[in-house]
């Protein structure tokens, strides 16, 4: 491998739109950053925020969450639930010492292979610029407690 830092990115995609967008990008032989490794869920609504935290804890430098466009969900409206969880989690991540830029939400329809590829490349570069995460969840938790303790005392 080359000298430059190659981030590891985990992508959670839904079965119906975004995984098919990735299929479409491949079928179109569109070249994009190979750093992403996909996990196929049935729906972005299946995404338990724990998965994302586990991904960061397990060594991922970035996590992409991808689903059908709002209004296009195969399960009617579950991507909205994914969206709600996403924004909530992103705020929490900052408190845990993870840059919000390491987590990205992408809506991609089954036809949007090009968009999927472009966005993955863009995201890979953004994470590359942030550098390796090397997140130590235990240390982060301890830090969390230190921050919280005075607040509790005050309360």
């Amino acid at each position, binding site marked *: *491998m080359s000298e430059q830092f190659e981030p*590891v990115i*985990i992508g959670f995609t839904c079965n119906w739109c975004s*995984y*098919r967008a*990735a*299929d479409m*990008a*491949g*079928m179109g*032989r*569109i*070249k*994009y950053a*190979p750093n992403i*490794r*996909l*996990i*196929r*869920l*049935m*729906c972005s*609504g*299946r*995404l*338990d*925020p*724990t*998965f994302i935290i*586990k*991904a960061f804890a*397990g*060594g*991922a430098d970035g996590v992409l969450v991808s689903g059908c466009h709002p*209004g296009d969900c*195969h*399960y*009617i*409206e*579950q991507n909205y*639930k*994914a969206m709600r*969880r996403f924004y909530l989690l992103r705020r929490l991540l900052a408190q845990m010492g993870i840059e919000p830029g390491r987590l990205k939400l992408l809506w991609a329809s089954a036809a949007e292979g090009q968009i999927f*590829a472009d966005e993955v490349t863009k995201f890979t570069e953004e994470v590359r610029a942030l550098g390796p995460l090397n997140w130590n969840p235990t240390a982060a938790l301890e830090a969390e407690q230190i921050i919280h303790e005075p607040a509790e005392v005050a309360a």
Partner: protein
Amino acid sequence: MEKERIGVYICHCGSNIAGTVDVAEVSRWAGEALKDRGVVVSRDYKFMCSSLGQELIQKDIKEQGLTRVVVAACSPHLHEQTFRNACKEGGLNPYLCELVSIREQCSWIHPDKAVGTEKAKAIVSGGVEKVIWDEPLEPLRVPINPVTLVVGGGIAGIQAALEVANAGYPVIMVEREPSIGGHMAQFDKTFPTLDCSACILTPRMVEVGSHPNVKLFSYAEVANVSGYVGNFQVTIKQKARSVNTDLCTGCGICQEKCPKKVIDPVFEAGLGYRKAVYTPFPQAVPKYPVIDRENCTYFLKGTCKACEKFCPTGAIDFNQEDEYFTFDVGQIILATGWDLFDARRIPQYGYGRLANVFTSLEFERLSNAAGPTGGKIVLRDGVTVPKSVAIIHCVGSRDKNYNPYCSAICCMQSLKFAHLVHERTGAEVYNFYIDMRTPAKGYEEFYQRLLEEGTHFIRGKVAEITDAARYPGEEGKLIVQAENTLIGKQMRVPVDMVILSAALEPRHDFKEVARLFGISCSEEGWLIERHPKLDPVATMTEGIYIAGCAQGPKDIPASVAQGAAAAARVVGKIQQKEITMEPIRASIDQDKCSGCRICNNMCPFNAISFIEDRMVSEVNPALCQGCGTCVAACPAGAISGTVFSDQAILAQLDGLLLNNVKAIDLTPA
């Protein structure tokens, strides 16, 4: 737990994968690095999907005693079923096979072989970790009730109902208006053949009304739907007709004797009158009239009862109340049709202000031999025959201010109008169009015929219709102001009559309909099909189909085709007697469930219900579609999803990050 015996198969896909992934290396790596994870066989082969490739797997299942299979090849959307079937035939439960994509997501997206090989290793590793957690599953089988509900009695619904009924299965049809027939019953002629609409429609209506397999509810609506494919429960609200249909013979004396005349805003499009007790038109099916309680003198003032006095069978029943009926049905076809764009929304076209501006539906009634003028094309005063007529296309469609879509029927409808005006009045006809769209069989020929008949075609969007005369010859006329874009000139065309070819719009209550039946609609309000090309009449909700204009604007042939297509799908399902469903389902561990009910509201399919006496929630596996949102939401971790369980996803994550092999590396020697 006894260790699984896993077989890993890396596909070359000719050079599609082998070109940018060192398949032999991936295979060797999986056999060595993942040995401790249970991999006992690791092979690469030119085409895994070929019968030889499949036999390779089957042979290993038998000889090596494989309990899990991972195939690294193309996208699961292409060949997951192939490899599952191969495993099944080899004696392994098909759901213990995992197909991971190293083609679409790996070899095709990057030219560098070293990078591709590393990524493929991670993907294979993820698949191996996930497959360990896979469980043997059986497809779900649900018996199917052969009764079918058809909502909407227009031509699409009629066709669907007849197809299902003629195949020998029971149909319940629900129509909101007092008679079936829909918009087609309002028309005089149909394009491009100009055959009489009533002549081709009414025999179909009679067939529905008298079919032994069809139970018809007119003047009724669907009030509630519950259940799932094969086993829906529907509640039908029969609005009070005030006429006892068991006694009524449909003789029509009540309509004759009723002294109250009211404008008919529905069937006659506001152009004609009906009585307070009425059938919308003489050939109505069913033949029983209804009393319009909002206009009936008896209901308003407490006296009259002329209809009751004259009814020879005593069928009038002023005390009748709305009734509710509940039926079990297996499948549902929605053919709820369309509403006409309200032309008042375009004030510069003057509809509602300028008397002689008509909508397309008004003109249909005007030209109809059974309509208010007996088919005479006259101005609003009822006597004057127009000497010149302008027909405006795309009113409210192909216009970003109103509806962006093309209403599909207006060009042909306008040509039909032009022909009828020309034929019956000899008037000069001006068609103002944006683009002529005549794509179906015989349509272009009809257009050519109109060109030869001498209709004037002006390409330009009309800016204004006004009665303010500016030049000699314009007094007392309607002036159509438009730019003729073919010659780049402004035109003012004075005419006696203007017809607006108004857009087809979704039914005004599309949101309620979508919610009631648990399906989705587009931004505009058209019901959404499962696939725009390959599955145009099914919806994302199993067992619910759509046909006709409810799905989008279309003409009669297309509506009939969709009605028949939906019926074919329904009959096909009924004949299977039971429905096979993918066993991707959520289930709730009753011991872990705290009864918090968070999951109850997560499910858009109402699959989760709360059991009051045990204070726990339960998933109905036949309703559950397997999205897994409730699994992610459960704070107690009591819900798990088959195929995509927490453990399986987290294991795959670990595998993708290669933590499974790192852990081994870190183990002190």
